[in-house]
Structures are given as structure tokens and as C-alpha cells.
């Protein structure tokens, strides 16, 4: 199973998003919230840029030796009494989770935030099997109530305003007093906490994601701000971690280095509120912890990225900084991207995972402004990789015919300077003549996509090269 994909309708999704006033209001919070905080916390740490280099190098090293570190990690997990389940596809991963849940007769599972869970559409699989999944991260809980995908990889409900959440809570929490005051965000939080507390205690299985898997110790690591992840993994009898292959890093020291750039890049915090390390199930004498500890490790197309132009994308530590700084993401929000991974990282990753035929718009819907790369804590060259996808699409004739013929036409002249001079001189002469009275066109044949929104400034008339030749004799 894979989450429903609407990426081929990116343009229609974008049109809807641009007309959605609620969304536009919510997105302006992203613009202000994340960017300034990241900049401030980065400026306070003199070694921030050096740490980014180091984070990049650690991930590169891990990816170059991925088989080795995954094997070493599995040995350590097993030695600590945990169990590792390898899943090639989303279906296999869901199947592995369901097998465990069925074996222990689980009726309710609590879930910490996990993008892999979204990628494999685990909630749908659980529900089909008659098991109730309960999201315990506040944002995930809200979008679960609404039946939506996350619109951001670390702030799943960032597309919503408090009033929308209030009406969802009133719709779903019908056991509570209809007259209660929910006008303050903290009241929403308190209500969600109250509802979730019972679920934590009654859950049979707790499922979390993993920010890192540590080869040296067989440990999985999660970072959260709400503490829900800890309750999810400690209270039920069974803890299932769902992770993907590229999450493995060699050592504890490596993780502590990467953690120093993760929260700073993500939320502008120096550290997340909770950073939790889990190694195996509860040992004799441990005061708490699950009886069983399982890790489902998903491939789902990632190993095919190794050794290709897209390998660098596997460095991603899911901080969200690229989308926080993306003008296109700000304009259309995460849902327009049509699958679980939005923004620049999604524009590179989604074509790898669901196919460029489906996700082809995403790497094209970028101005290549480069702000994503300039903030990525592991220095992923996102625009360059989006360009690689455009090259693949061009080679496979997936790019729109208008673009192909436009570039071919332009390229023909650009390769032939003499012809170019002749043709452009005539064309610009005509355009200047038509635009001479107003200075700009309100509409222009063949440029409707431009003039629908903006005027098109008229050329001054005469090309520079022709005028230069006339003035300076072609020196």
C-alpha cells in the first residue's frame, strides 16, 4: 500500500491552494516562524558551518558503506534482544507490522510521528485489519482526525489555523462539554493531551519512527518536542520502530554531531526537547520498557538510488529546512505536491520513490533560487538533483511539448550567432515598435502564461550587439 498520490495534478492542486485563504494565512506563519529562528540559532554557533560539513561527511561515509553498517547494526539489535525485519516494499513493511500486531492480538496501537508510516500508508493498513491506530503527535493527531496527509515533514498540520483545529475537536470529541472554551491554542493542546492519555495506557503496541539507527550500539533514536514518542514506546508491551535503510550512522559520536545541526535547522532550537535512545526490549531489572522491540527497515526504492546521481538525497535527515525556505512551498503548501514528501526534498525524493512519470511536475516546479541548498544541514545539492530529474524527463520525452519545441527553437539560434543576430534584430524591432506607446504589453501572443499575471515590458528596440557594431565598428 502507498499513500494516495495526486502529484500528477500538481498544477490543479496549486491552483486550489493559491485560492485557499485559510491556507495562505497559515503559510505566512511558516515564512516568519521557522526562518528567523533558524538564522538566529545558527548565528549563535560559530562552528555551525563546519558541523554541516561534518554531518554531510558522516552521512556520505555511512551511505558508501551502507551494507556494512546495516549488518553491524542488525547484529547489535539482535544481541540486545531486539528483532529486525527487512522490508523491500511498502506492502512488506505494513505486512511485518500487521503480523506482529495480530500475533499479540493488538486492538489499539499508539503511534509517534513517522514519515515512513505515512509513506507506506500504515494507518490504512491497520484499519483494514481491524486495528485502531492513534496518532499521538499533536499535528499528526489533528490530520488523522481530518483524514489528511501531513503537509510538512516536521509540522504535519502547519497548513491549518487554530479555528480549524477547534472545529475538528468539537466534531470528534463529542464526549466533552459542547460549551467548553477552546479559543486558546493551549486549551486545544490540553484537550488533546487528555484524550490521548487514555489511549497511551490502553494501547497494545506502540509504533515510532527513527531519526537515526546507530550501528555501533544497535540503537534507534527519536527526537520529539512533545514527549509523546516516549510514552508511545515505553507504555505498551510491544515497541515497533519503522525506519528506512539510510537512517543508519556508524557511531554514537556521529549521531551527537548530527543532532547539533538537526534541531537548529528544523525548528531553530539548540536541541529538541526529547532525544530518546532505544536499545532492545526491557532487560531484567529495568524499571520500564517494552517486552518486545522490533525494527522494520524499509527500502522501497532507496537502494536503487545508491550509486546514481540521486545518492546524495539519501543524506537527508528530514529537518524540513528546505521547505521552510522554499518560495514555491510557501505559495502552495505541502498538499499540492500530492504525496507525503513536499518541498524541495520531496521534489527530489518523490520521483525516486513513486516514479518520475507520476511526480514529474515536482522537480520542475522550482525557480532554482537555491535557498534550500543554502540551508540544508547536510548540504544536499537540491537544485542540481531537480535538474537531473528534468534531464531524465527530457531524455524520456516526458517534458511538455511546448517546452521542448521552445527550447529547440531557441537553441537553434543560440548555436548560430549570425542567424541569431538577424532573427533577433527583426523580432525585437517589431516588438519594440508595437510596444513603443505603452512601454509594456498587457497581453502578447505566445506569452499568455506571462501576461495573464504580469505586463510584459517592451524591448527598447535594436539589439545591443547591432548598436555596438554601429557605434564602435564591431570591435
Amino acid at each position: 500500500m502507498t499513500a494516495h498520490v495526486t502529484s500528477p495534478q500538481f498544477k490543479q492542486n496549486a491552483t486550489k491552494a493559491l485560492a485557499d485563504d485559510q491556507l495562505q494565512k497559515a503559510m505566512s506563519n511558516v515564512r516568519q516562524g521557522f526562518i528567523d529562528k533558524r538564522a538566529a540559532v545558527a548565528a549563535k554557533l560559530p562552528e555551525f558551518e563546519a558541523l554541516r560539513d561534518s554531518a554531510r561527511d558522516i552521512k556520505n561515509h555511512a551511505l558508501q558503506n551502507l551494507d556494512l553498517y546495516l549488518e553491524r547494526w542488525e547484529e547489535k539489535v539482535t544481541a540486545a534482544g531486539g528483532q529486525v525485519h527487512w522490508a523491500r516494499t511498502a506492502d512488506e513493511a505494513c505486512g511485518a507490522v500487521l503480523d506482529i500486531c495480530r500475533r499479540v492480538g493488538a486492538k489499539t496501537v499508539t503511534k509517534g510521528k513517522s514519515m515512513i508510516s505515512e509513506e507506506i500508508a500504515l494507518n490504512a493498513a491497520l484499519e483494514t485489519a481491524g486495528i485502531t491506530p492513534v496518532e499521538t503527535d499533536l499535528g499528526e493527531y489533528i490530520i488523522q482526525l481530518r483524514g489528511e496527509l501531513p503537509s510538512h515533514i516536521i509540522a504535519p498540520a502547519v497548513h491549518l489555523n487554530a479555528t480549524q483545529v477547534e472545529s475538528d475537536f468539537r466534531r470528534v470529541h463529542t464526549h466533552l462539554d459542547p460549551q467548553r472554551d477552546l479559543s486558546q491554542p493551549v486549551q486545544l493542546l490540553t484537550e488533546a493531551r487528555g484524550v490521548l492519555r487514555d489511549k497511551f495506557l490502553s494501547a497494545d503496541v506502540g509504533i515510532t519512527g527513527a531519526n537515526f539507527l546507530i550501528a555501533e550500539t544497535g540503537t534507534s533514536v527519536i527526537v520529539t518536542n512533545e514527549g509523546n514518542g516516549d510514552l508511545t514506546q515505553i507504555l505498551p508491551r510491544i515497541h515497533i520502530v519503522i525506519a528506512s535503510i539510510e537512517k543508519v550512522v556508524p557511531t554514537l559520536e556521529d549521531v551527537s554531531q548530527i543532532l547539533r545541526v538537526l534541531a537548529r535547522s528544523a525548528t531553530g532550537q539548540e536541541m529538541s526537547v526529547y532525544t530518546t535512545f532505544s536499545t532492545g526490549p526491557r532487560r531484567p531489572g529495568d524499571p520500564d520498557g517494552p517486552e518486545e522491540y522490533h525494527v522494520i527497515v524499509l527500502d522501497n526504492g532507496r537502494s536503487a538510488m545508491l550509486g546514481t546521481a540521486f545518492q546524495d538525497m539519501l543524506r537527508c535527515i528530514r529537518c524540513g529546512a528546505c521547505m521552510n525556505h522554499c518560495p514555491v512551498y510557501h505559495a502552495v503548501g505541502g498538499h499540492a505536491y500530492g504525496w507525503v514528501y513536499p518541498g524541495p526534498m520531496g521534489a527530489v525524493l518523490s520521483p525516486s520513490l513513486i516514479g518520475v512519470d507520476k511526480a514529474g511536475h515536482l522537480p520542475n516546479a522550482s525557480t532554482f533560487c537555491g535557498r534550500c541548498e543554502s540551508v540544508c544541514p547536510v548540504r544536499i545539492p537540491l537544485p542540481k538533483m531537480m535538474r537531473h530529474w528534468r534531464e531524465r524527463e527530457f531524455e524520456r520525452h516526458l517534458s511538455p511539448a511546448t517546452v521542448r519545441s521552445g527550447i529547440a527553437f531557441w537553441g537553434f539560434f543560440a548555436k548560430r550567432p549570425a542567424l541569431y543576430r538577424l532573427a533577433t534584430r527583426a523580432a525585437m524591432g517589431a516588438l519594440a515598435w508595437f510596444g513603443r506607446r505603452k512601454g509594456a504589453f498587457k497581453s502578447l501572443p505566445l506569452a499568455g502564461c506571462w501576461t495573464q499575471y504580469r505586463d510584459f515590458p517592451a524591448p527598447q528596440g535594436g539589439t545591443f550587439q547591432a548598436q555596438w557594431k554601429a557605434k564602435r565598428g564591431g570591435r
Partner: protein
Amino acid sequence: MATVLLDTQSAKTRPVRPRVALFVTCLVDLMRPSIGFAAVKLLEDAGCVVEVPSQTCCGQPAFNSGDRATATAIAARTIDAFAGYDYVVAPSGSCAGMIKAHYPELFAGDPNLARKADALAQRTWELTSFLVDVMGVTAVAAKVEATATYHDSCSGLRELGVKRQPRQLLASVEGLTLTEMNENEVCCGFGGTFSVKYGEISDSIVGKKTGNVAASGAHMLLAGDLGCLMNMAGKLSREGKAVEVRHVAEVLAGMTDEPPIGVARQPAA
């Protein structure tokens, strides 16, 4: 897109009167030749001998559309046409960035051309950074009465580190006050073919930009890239916002006789 570190060596090793090839850029060539003449004036005032080799386009539209073959063919032509000069200067961070940051990448698999591409990349500069960082220009002799705001175009800013150079030169323009707008480092939404392929999104982005321009109180908008300027001028004009839009070179050269971008030469007859 790593920021290319400025080569402080260049300032020391450069010839006294360097031969500079102007890469005028296709947009300036076709749409607004006056920017080219402003660039020539600034370069000549700084002591350069300026030449204009026969040229077309840097190939960026093809490169960014995924048409690597066409981009490579155009780049190979440009490399030939611009060989043998001390420097190549473009009144555009985007086109200079294409040559500096992406030509070497295009020819990475071809040792012979890669060497030439690297050599060209090292000699290529965006106009304002060339004037300040290579020619050591600290002031220009221009007078323009205006309150202006400056938009940092993306490629110049993030590929070439162009930020302080245009501001340093603008500070020396008599009569000019520079007032910074909010989010001056945020993309204007142009993005070359993006502006027509995703016109609606592009429009939303440029709308935020023109909002910031208007809120700054400036009545002149400057930038170093004509693509961005046409996009912003087109939106300002559509919104009926009376802001004079110009390339930074026009102001630095004191050549503001030509009407601003998108304004007719004479009133309608």
C-alpha cells in the same frame, strides 16, 4: 550551489588595463541594450578595455529545462568565443553563475573542454563584484536623485556571493538613498521558464515581492538581473504601483535618461 569564494588574488595579479569581454546576456541584448552600454561605461571608467565578441546566450534555459545536449553545444560555442580575454564580465549574476558554476559541471566528462571551461569560469565575473573585488572600485561618479531598494537576485547572491558589492557602489551615488525591503534575499518568482510553466505560482511569489517593495517606501527598485527586473516590473505595472524599475548598472553609470523598464519612451501620441 556553493558560494564561489572571491579570488582576492585576482585584484593583485590583474593587468593594469585588462581586456574585458562583455557577456551582454541575451535578455539585455534583446530587451534593454542600455544596460549593456551602462556596463561598458562602468568598465571603461574602471580602466578596462571592453570588447564585445559575437555571442548569443549562455545556454541556461536549455540547461535548466533538462536539455543537456543543447546546453552543452551552446556552452562550447561560448567557451570558444570568449577565450583569450583577461576577464569576461556579465551584467547578470544568473548568466555569470551559469558560466562560473555550471559550465565546468557540463564538461566534467571531457578533460579537454573541462580545462577550457574551468579557465573561462575562473575569469568570469558578475559586473558589480568585478568592479569592486577585481578592479578595486570603491565609488562611482554618478548622480541619481532617488530612494531605491535593492533586490538580491538568487544566482548572484547564492552562487557568486554578490551582496555587499552593489550596495557599496550604490552608497557612492550622489543623491541616492538605499532603503532595504523585507525579504530582499527571497526569490522574485521569475526562475526563467518557471515564470511561464507555473505562471500562477510565479505570480503569487512576485506578488509578495512587490508587496515588500511597496512597503519599503522606495520609489525605485534595483537589481542586477534583467529577468528578475522584467518580472517585478511587469507585476508592479499590472498592480498600478508607480515604482521605477532599473538595472543597478544604469544607476551606477548615471545613465537614467532612458525610461525605466516597462515605461514608454514618449507619452502616447
